[in-house]
């Protein structure tokens, strides 16, 4: 073979930057062929998607709204993955967070008189964090104490959580004045995260749109997470356990305690995604809160290479794909599946491109035919 594959001994900066860019271009070309095949102009489609996601303040606002829960869940998954703890349960942890925040907003605020204004929002956030953390601690402790595979347990718990909140908003928590619509009553006004356009002291980047304070909370969470992972000894321990658990044991690190702590943070962050959705967008617990963000988070975390700031960026780009995809459905009459095809293609190419950051291909030239057994 004139081609040889060799591992890269030193990481190449150029390859790290170039590989994903080339991958995106290839994905666009690949999807372009599909679009031509169904009789659409690919350039026109891409332009429409771009306009839909970033073409106006409103479009940008919608993209950020879509990105916010992905940021939380992406951060949640990435801290667990750093320790090679495969938390597939961000979806259920988000649902439990939404459940706890709604409970505080609808019922606890009624019985505790001082739970008003910012205190109410804070209580909702804390409750959401705690509920997500508990939901994460179940697979966490099963793994830490009994060695049960966390992929299965965290995944199964998603169904439990989703069905639980469905039971609530179809049943006991259903709004009696809701005309039979599945969902709870609207939250009191104090239990609502302000929109950026309504926040007077902010420079008016958005005079329109639904983008809300949850976005700031996600950014703050990313900064804190980065500080913890990169600057504290706890972050160092998580990295050691993830890279080499044997060496962690040799160095006397407490693996059980670290698994539990990581799952508290991971589940808690996913729980905050639920809080941000009910308090920032829907203002009630209802259908459409849990839409797969816990699973998309796995892709977000992976593409961001588990870097917190990378998670913010990737979550925004993926959200733009979603929003842009919705737009071409409306403006060009294309099926939304087109956007999904494009997403799939991009992910596929980007993941495949990471091969080139670790290996290189060398042209060795044609060699003389080999003497075997003439």
């Amino acid at each position, binding site marked *: 073979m004139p081609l040889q594959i060799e591992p890269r001994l030193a990481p190449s900066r150029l390859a790290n930057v170039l590989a994903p860019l080339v991958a995106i271009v290839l994905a666009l070309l690949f999807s372009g062929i599909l679009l031509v095949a169904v009789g659409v102009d690919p350039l026109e489609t891409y332009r429409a998607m771009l306009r839909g996601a970033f073409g106006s303040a409103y479009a940008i606002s919608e993209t950020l709204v879509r990105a916010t829960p992905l940021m939380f869940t992406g951060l949640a998954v990435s801290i667990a993955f750093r320790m090679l703890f495969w938390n597939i349960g961000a979806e259920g942890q988000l649902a439990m967070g939404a459940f706890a925040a709604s409970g505080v907003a609808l019922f606890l605020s009624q019985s505790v008189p001082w739970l008003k204004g910012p205190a109410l929002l804070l209580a909702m956030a804390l409750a959401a964090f705690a509920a997500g953390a508990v939901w994460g601690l179940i697979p966490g402790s099963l793994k830490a104490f009994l060695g049960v595979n966390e992929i299965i347990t965290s995944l199964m718990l998603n169904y439990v959580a989703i069905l639980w909140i469905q039971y609530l908003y179809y049943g006991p928590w259903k709004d009696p004045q809701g005309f039979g619509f599945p969902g709870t009553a609207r939250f009191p006004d104090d239990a609502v995260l302000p929109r950026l356009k309504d926040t007077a002291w902010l420079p008016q980047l958005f005079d329109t749109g639904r983008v809300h304070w949850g976005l700031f909370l996600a950014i703050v969470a990313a900064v804190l997470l980065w500080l913890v992972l990169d*600057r504290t000894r706890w972050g160092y321990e998580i990295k050691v356990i993830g890279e080499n658990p*044997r*060496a962690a044991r040799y160095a*006397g690190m407490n693996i059980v305690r670290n698994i539990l702590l990581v799952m508290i943070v991971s589940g808690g962050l996913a729980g905050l995604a639920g809080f941000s959705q009910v308090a920032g967008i829907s203002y009630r617990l209802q259908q459409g809160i849990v839409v797969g963000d816990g699973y998309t988070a796995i892709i977000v975390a992976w593409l961001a290479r588990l870097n917190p700031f990378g998670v913010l960026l990737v979550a925004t780009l993926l959200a733009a794909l979603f929003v842009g995809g919705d737009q071409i459905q409306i403006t060009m009459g294309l099926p939304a599946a087109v956007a999904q095809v494009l997403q799939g293609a991009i992910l596929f190419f980007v993941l495949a491109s990471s091969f080139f950051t670790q290996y290189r291909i060398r042209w060795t030239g044609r060699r003389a035919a080999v003497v075997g057994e003439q």
Partner: protein
Amino acid sequence: MAIPKPRNNSGADATAQRRIQRIEMCDIVKRFPGVLANDRVCFDVKAGEVHALLGENGAGKSTLMRQLFGLYKPDEGEILIDGQRVEFNSPADAIRAGIGMIHQHFMLVPTLTVTQNVALGLKSSREPLTDLDVVAKRVRQLSEEYGLKVDPDAYIWQLSVGEQQRVEILKALYRNASMIILDEPTAVLTPQEVKDLFATLRRMVQEGHGLVFISHKLYEVLAISDRVTVLRDGRVIGTRETKDVTRDELARMMVGREVKRLRAQPQQAGEPLLQIRALRAMGDRGTEALRGIDLEVRSGEIVGIAGVSGNGQRELAECLGGLRKATAGTILVAGKDLTHASVQQRLQAGLAYIPEERMRDGAIKEFSVLENMFLLDHASPKYTHGIFLDFRRMREHAAALVKEYTVKTPSLETPIKNLSGGNIQKTIMARELSREPRVLVAAQPSRGIDIGATEYIHQRLLEQRASGQAILLISEDLDEVQALSDRIAVMYEGRIVGIVGRGQATAEQLGLMMAGVPMEEAMGAAPTAPTAEQPIEVSSVV
């Protein structure tokens, strides 16, 4: 071309095959990313000789021979067999041409018998039926002819390492290899097994085989070879007739400078710092690996544990380091009971542990040299502000350690996996010794490490001994144990079969004990070794 037609490989017509008279490798160049592994190397081997290929780890010995065996293709240069140019695409081509290779790690199927392993991959003489009886007959014949004692019907998993090596040699002979490459064949053997191997090799040479003997052990090269070629940094330093060179000269060619020979005076040992009493522990396979170990290491003393791999040394080290549970017995460090203590408590009690598998247990491949330096001390108040790590202080400290221990690394940020084995081990030593432990457990501290780094590590261990540390040295390298230890404890099947003082037993006597012969019998087997209290001669060139 010159290569004979593929033969019926059943071995029955082996004698019909023409023997290779000479193999030449000319101006071989082999590049790996960032490394010139072989730089215009010339090498030749003739029928009826042992040609030793000597060099440190990473000198390019194995790379050169892998090209001869068809595992790699040379980037430049040519290989001639009896004057005819050949090119091998795979080991199959090389085997067909009459070349055999005995790898360091054996290529045997443990659940098959010796005969089945020999026949594996070959055509039967009566396809589609097997001809294992024919193979077994030929195996028996070969093993008698060459003195390779092995039962053709035994399963591989039942065999000792030495016996498995014999099966590998039989495989090569069965495939009519006339030139055989042996890659560090003695690394896994006891002294007795080395003797047997050398007898077999001499027999093979008499039969007209040519042998390439890859090694970094000088005395073995001097004992077995007719010629020796020294490689350093991918280049040939020289080829000599073995009878015309001295050990010192070879060492100098190998390392590129004069190699120091340290001499440490015997010194008075102090109070016992490590006491192990009736220690028992289970192995990974659920059988008892330690069956009652009693051992004491005093301040200012190095106690060496000798033994063939797999007799409980690894489990003992892991028990001491806190990675394996003791099922019975006690471990005392400076009088403190640490039998069931956590790793943290052991570290605080002044115990340091250099693990046998340094890349698996002792270091984190992807982490930088800096991060690896603080694997144990990352929580120490010296390097933290509250919950935050103080990278500036860590960096200063790590830079000082890198300098003090002469770790060769491009920077503190370099991932440790990119360093050589010797420099990785120096990093681990720096980390452990800078904690100023009272008891040091060093498992295989120089395995797979070049002479220069080994010399340094030995010197360091002696310095620690002089400063009053108690050191337990666990090593499968008997020369290392003999060179450094004040007392030698021999382990066999999870027990200590005997403890002898410095210079009280010869390598042969220790070898017998390592094979399970009780101490009294072993010491009686050979005439009494020199017992005079000699200064320890620490030779890094083992």
